[in-house]
């Protein structure tokens, strides 16, 4: 089976309430899709996502791997750049950055170092070597 990467623009979740947002994303992950969300959830929604994921775990669905990339967190060198970043952050809010949600049966681990994101995929039964994808 091929790998499905589902892109979700922020506009698709913008109008939804917290529970519906989380359930929409989780439903996609449960269909074995790797979800790439434009922007990010609120911190409370991230915690809800983990809690609801736990409720859904069974013999087939083992949970998720989650990573949030937030460019606002990167420290800028100068005061002016700092103001610029803060201004853009105020304008864009949660639209900034992106979120990756992968089903644990497909994605073994997401390493989110400051400079890069690594998706380590689960070994499929046939090939023994581990596949690795890098998004820079």
């Amino acid at each position, binding site marked *: 089976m091929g790998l499905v990467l589902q892109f979700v623009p922020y506009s698709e979740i913008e109008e939804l309430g917290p529970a519906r947002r989380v359930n929409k994303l989780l439903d996609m992950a449960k269909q074995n899709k790797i979800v790439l969300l434009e922007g990010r959830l609120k911190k409370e929604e*991230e*915690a809800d996502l*983990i*809690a609801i994921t736990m409720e859904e775990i069974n013999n087939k669905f083992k*949970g998720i791997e*989650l990573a949030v990339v937030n460019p606002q967190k990167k420290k800028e060198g100068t005061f002016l750049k700092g103001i610029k970043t803060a201004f853009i952050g105020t304008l864009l809010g949660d639209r900034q950055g992106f979120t990756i949600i992968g089903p*644990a049966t497909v994605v073994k681990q997401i390493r989110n170092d400051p400079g890069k994101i690594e998706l380590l995929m689960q070994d499929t039964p046939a090939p023994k070597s581990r596949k690795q994808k890098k998004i820079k």
Partner: protein
Amino acid sequence: MVANIIKKFMNKVLRNFFKKKKQVKLGLYGPPNGGKTTLANRICQDWLGEDMGSVSNIAHETREIQIKEQITIKSKGKELTFNLVDTPGIATKIDYEDFIKAGMKDREAKTRAKEATKGVIDSIKWLDEMDTVVIVLDATKDPYSQVNITIIGNLQAREIPVLIVANKVDLKKAKIKKIEAAFPQYDVIGISAKYGDNINKFYEGLFALVD
């Protein structure tokens, strides 16, 4: 600027309020196998002379919230009394097959996985109950995991004071600097909960957190 000053003032007022409360809840949070229960046992042994819970190399040994009430610690003439809350490790995935690989039987592994999922939910629910939190991280592991960031982000959103403990510094692979770099806005104290290394500095850190 003004908002920051008001925020700091309100935080101080709230912290003073918590200090005067009879039952301050100090939560131990973090991913599974970071050493939360080992630290809870260290605190309880140091100040009560008894253990709090069982520890294991297999993840999710603590699957229920555990509370030890009225622990009073002393340092440099000061006293601090709190209810210690040891929480199940927070994870985004739980696979009963991992427990089978660790040597458990099928049924036992499935039960443990089921209880572990409930434990994670309880830990998240209890975030709102905490007055102050110690995040216990395994210093040999990558600190940039989303679970760590989500827990800390949620505590920050609730304005709950946080101290980060880099546990297992007795191990060669421990990298405190990496944890400090990942969470520069917080105090990080390197300890070995198992052997008690640097534990006095940890107690001093607790006083600094609630002062």
